[in-house]
């Protein structure tokens, strides 16, 4: 038999590599120039100094030039909030945007942050180029294994007194390193130019406000930033105008004039806005910000479109981008009237947090798609029309991802000229888009009879099972374009959405198992359900209680449909593989492996 290394040589391929060393250098230069171009006014002097030095020396020494700060300067650079960017390989650990580790260095010498699971506080100091965090006090909660692995990595790194290296000229990226252990952090900086397009509407603020900042019925606070430095806005019942700027990561609003109607809590909102809150990007969307200050925070979401009500509205327009829940991957939805759009909004989990856009359905149709988690999700930039078929055009963003790691939803509107009645939406035959096809690959943009959303129930376990391991609670989901039984199982195997988890629902299934349904065939009242072998991903499901919970969730989800009395499960065509995993025997009427 051929040696393994020879097989690998052959499998790796010997075709010419599609990029050259020059391409690598260009990528580095683009990145460098982008960082330089992005420097804010406050960092201008630093940029000039760094650039002058950069020009005068070998470019590959750039990092060293930028990273030879005096102790004083390093301390200045560190002050502020930092968000994790890279950890290298951490065995058993992976960063999730749900709990991004952060470090905040205060100018008074205190530091606080989160290393993944627990929060900590203490003092910080720079000794030479090393970061010291004496007197660090941390909470002692336990979290999931991957979070704890990341936390241990960072905890040990900080205990080592890591060397601090500033990775760029403007002090927005640092590396903490001790030997081979390292972590890089970045400042989530927002630029003036990022804010000038669209209106920013408050969509969340936690429980820290004396009024419901995200309650659409009473009106949400909103801000509109003009390029000329003017800002206008509304709060719950007052309007205002003034001047604005972004200075060192803070939103600065001055010369505010406003109306003075009495509304409870208004003054606290204005104190907050005028208190120069920190401004951050938030989540995957470049259309979402967080303002933080005075112990409070406010989430703002950009609304750009006029809903296609203007003659000038482009034929294809992205109405809204947002993060999506794990269960939505591959989702395609369309709306041709207000009711359908509201339904779509609800299916996307946006109801209550983001206003439903006003769309002129006399001239436009709306399509929503969800693309999967990716280190750098491609951007939906256009559609190509071939006959009556519209195919999306994706484009990798130029340069590093700004806000990666979340499933992403796009809501786009298209003119009737672009998407006339009878049009179909279809993904092009591109292996890179394979993941999108776990939902329906093709749908009519104009819904017709038989293409309505099907309401299905998916059974998850209540968080506290008590003595009844087989207890379940149904949640309602909508599926479109697939057999409802298959759709329900798709959703079940993807686990409960974050909203459902917050509501106390639990399942052994999660995003880890999303997409592992292979097929469902119903014969004689028995559903034969074949999965990829997810046994290694569900280590607790083979316990007696775990298997009872799993089988009851599956069984109740499957048997809700007429004509299905029970189900037999398979791992890759083998019932014995599935049932042996649960330490039981396969039903006698299970199909043999060769029966598939």
């Amino acid at each position, binding site marked *: *038999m051929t040696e393994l290394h020879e097989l690998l040589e052959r499998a*790796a*391929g010997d075709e010419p590599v599609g990029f050259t060393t020059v391409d690598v250098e260009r990528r580095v230069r683009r990145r460098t120039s982008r960082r330089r171009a992005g420097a804010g006014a406050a960092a201008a002097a630093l940029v000039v100094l760094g650039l002058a030095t950069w020009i005068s020396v070998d470019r*590959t020494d750039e990092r060293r030039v930028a990273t030879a700060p005096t102790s004083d300067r390093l301390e200045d650079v560190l002050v502020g909030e930092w968000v994790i960017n890279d950890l290298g*390989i951490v*065995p058993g650990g992976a960063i999730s945007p749900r709990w991004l580790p952060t470090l905040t260095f205060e100018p008074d010498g205190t530091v606080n942050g989160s290393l993944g699971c627990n929060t900590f506080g203490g003092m910080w100091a720079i000794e030479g180029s090393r970061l010291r965090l004496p007197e660090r006090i941390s909470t002692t909660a336990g979290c999931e294994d991957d979070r704890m692995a990341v936390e241990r990595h960072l905890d040990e790194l900080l205990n080592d007194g890591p060397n601090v290296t500033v990775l760029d000229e403007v002090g927005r990226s640092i590396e903490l390193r001790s030997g081979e252990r390292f972590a890089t952090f970045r400042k989530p900086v927002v630029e003036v130019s990022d804010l000038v397009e669209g209106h920013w509407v408050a969509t969340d603020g936690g429980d820290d406000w004396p009024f419901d900042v995200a309650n659409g019925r009473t009106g949400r606070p909103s801000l509109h930033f003009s390029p000329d430095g003017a800002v206008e806005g509304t709060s719950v019942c007052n309007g205002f105008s003034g001047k604005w700027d972004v200075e060192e990561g803070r939103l600065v609003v001055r010369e505010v004039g406003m109306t003075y109607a009495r509304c409870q809590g208004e003054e606290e909102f204005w104190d907050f806005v005028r208190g120069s809150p920190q401004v951050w990007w938030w989540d995957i969307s470049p259309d979402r910000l967080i303002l933080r200050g005075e112990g409070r925070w406010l989430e703002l979401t950009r609304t750009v479109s006029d809903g296609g009500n203007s003659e000038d509205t482009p034929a294809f327009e992205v109405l809204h981008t947002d993060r999506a829940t794990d269960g939505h991957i591959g989702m395609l939805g369309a709306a041709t009237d207000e009711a359908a759009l509201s339904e779509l909004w609800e299916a996307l989990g946006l109801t209550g947090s983001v206003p439903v856009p006003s769309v002129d359905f006399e001239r436009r149709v709306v399509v929503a798609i969800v693309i999967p*988690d990716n280190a750098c999700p491609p951007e939906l930039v256009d559609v190509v029309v071939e006959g009556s078929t519209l195919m999306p055009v994706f484009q990798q963003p130029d340069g590093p991802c700004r806000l990666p790691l979340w499933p992403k939803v796009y809501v786009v509107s298209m003119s009737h000229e672009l998407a006339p009645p009878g049009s179909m939406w279809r993904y092009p035959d591109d*292996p890179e888009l394979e993941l999108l096809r776990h939902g329906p690959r093709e749908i009519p943009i104009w819904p017709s009879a038989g293409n309505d959303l099907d309401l299905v129930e998916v059974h998850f376990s209540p968080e506290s099972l008590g003595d009844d391991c087989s207890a379940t609670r149904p949640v309602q989901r909508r599926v479109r374009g697939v057999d409802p039984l298959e759709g329900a199982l798709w959703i079940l195997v993807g686990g409960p959405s974050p909203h459902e988890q917050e509501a106390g629902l639990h399942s052994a299934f999660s995003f880890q198992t999303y997409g592992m349904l292979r097929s469902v065939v119903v014969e004689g009242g028995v559903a034969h359900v074949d999965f990829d072998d997810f046994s290694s991903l569900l280590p607790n499901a083979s316990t007696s209680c775990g298997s009872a919970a799993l089988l009851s969730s599956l069984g109740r989800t499957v048997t809700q449909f007429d004509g299905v009395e029970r189900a037999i499960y398979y791992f890759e065509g083998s019932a014995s593989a599935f049932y042996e995993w649960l330490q039981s025997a396969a039903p006698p009427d299970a199909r043999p492996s060769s029966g598939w």
Partner: protein
Amino acid sequence: MTDPTVAEFCERLRGRLVGSLTLFCGDRAVAEELAQEALARAWERWSSVGQMASPEAWTYRTALNLARSRFRRRAAERRANRRHSGRFASSGNDEGSDAAASLAIRAAVAGLPPRQRAVIVARFYLGLDVADTATALDCAQGTVKAATHAAIQNLRAAGLADEHEHASEVDRT
């Protein structure tokens, strides 16, 4: 002005890195993108990476990290790979062709758990020994040996490695 050392490093490593990632990811286009990004990061940090005992190991580790980030939580990706794998296995007309065989090998390697995959690529494609593989993957040498053992068993089950290979390679240091 370009540092000839880093340019030479990129030139020397890029083909091998793309090959490694092709085996790791099962997709040449993705591998090229990840390799280019890993090399760009090495370039940006060359003042420290270039001083390391093995810049290649650092770059390989960075590339693996990028790959893992890209495919983090992508159980669905496995499903896609398996579908490809099944398609290759059942495409009788192409079974004898080099292209089909290469794709089948890629699919088999891509079907290994991540650590086993990384170990197999590091040792049998990059030619790293146990110690360097352990350095590149930030794990103990015993872990490398165990993962090699398990990976070869899995590949043998897929008809891609034999007993001789198993016995001779697991303990090779």
